[in-house]
C-alpha cells in the first residue's frame, strides 16, 4: 500500500500556490532543523534513507515541510535510544 507521501496523480490538494520572493527558510527554527539533520546524517547518527523513511511514515499533510522533518528527526533519535 502506498504511503501518504506518494501523491502523484491524486486529486484534492487544491491549486499550486507560489510565494513571490520566498526566503530559503521562513523562520530561524527551520534553518536549525535543516542544519541539525545535515549534521546528524554527516555524523552517521542515522543515514539519509532512514531519514526519508522516517519522514514518510510519520508525516502529515497538515504539518509544514520542516515540521514533518522535525517529527522524523525526533522519531529516529527516540528509536535509536538517543533521547
Amino acid at each position, binding site marked *: 500500500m502506498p504511503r501518504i507521501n506518494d501523491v*502523484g496523480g491524486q486529486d484534492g490538494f487544491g491549486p*499550486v500556490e*507560489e510565494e513571490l520572493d520566498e526566503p530559503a527558510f521562513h523562520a*530561524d*527554527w527551520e534553518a536549525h532543523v535543516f542544519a541539525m539533520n545535515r549534521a546528524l546524517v554527516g555524523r552517521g547518527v542515522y543515514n539519509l534513507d532512514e531519514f526519508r523513511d522516517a519522514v514518510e511514515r510519520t508525516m502529515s499533510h497538515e504539518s509544514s*515541510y520542516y515540521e514533518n522533518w522535525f517529527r522524523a528527526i525526533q522519531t529516529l533519535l527516540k528509536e535509536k535510544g538517543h533521547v
Partner: protein
Amino acid sequence: MSDDHDDSPIAARVRELEAILEEKGLLDATELDRALEAFAHKATPANGFRVVARSWVDEEFKARLLENANEALPAVGLSMGGGLQVQRLRVVENTEKVHNVVVCTLCSCYPIALLGPSPTWYKSPAYRSKVVSHPREVLAQFGLELPADTEIRVWDANAESRYMVLPRRPGGTEQLSEEELATKVTRNGLIGTAAV
C-alpha cells in the same frame, strides 16, 4: 546558531532538542553554523543560471552536459557532490517541440547544489500530485501557456537522480555576453514552470 528570538512552540522544542544533542556530544553549535553558512553561500540558483548561460554560448559544453551532466559540471566549477550523497544529474533540454518540467512526487528531491533550497510550492502536495496528471493546467497556473502541439515531459526525481531543465535561449539575445545571458534565467525556468 546563536541568534534566537523566535518564541513559537516549535522553535522552543527545536532549541530544546538541540541542547540535549549538544550535551550528548551528538551536535556542535559551531558545526551547525558552519554547515548553514556554507549552504547559504554556495547553493544558490546562480549556479544553475551559469550552467544554462554556458550551454547557450558553448555547443560542446552543452552536448557534454546533456550527455553526462555530472562530468560536465566541473568545467564551470560546480559539482553534485556538495550534499550528503552524490546524486546523478540529468539535464533535459527544452526545444521548439518539447517542454520539460521537474517534480518529486514522493518527497522533495531537487538539485540543491545548482538551484539552492527548493521553494515551498515544489514541496507541496498540490504541485506534486497534479503536475504529473495535469501538467498543462499546472504550468498555466504559473502563467506559462504552451502551444497545444508542444509535448510536455514530466521528470520525477528521486533519491539518486535529480533533474534540471535547460530552457531555450530567448530571442534577441545574440549580442549578450555569457554573464548577461545568465541574468535572463530564472529559478522556475530551471524547474520548468517558466519558459526561461
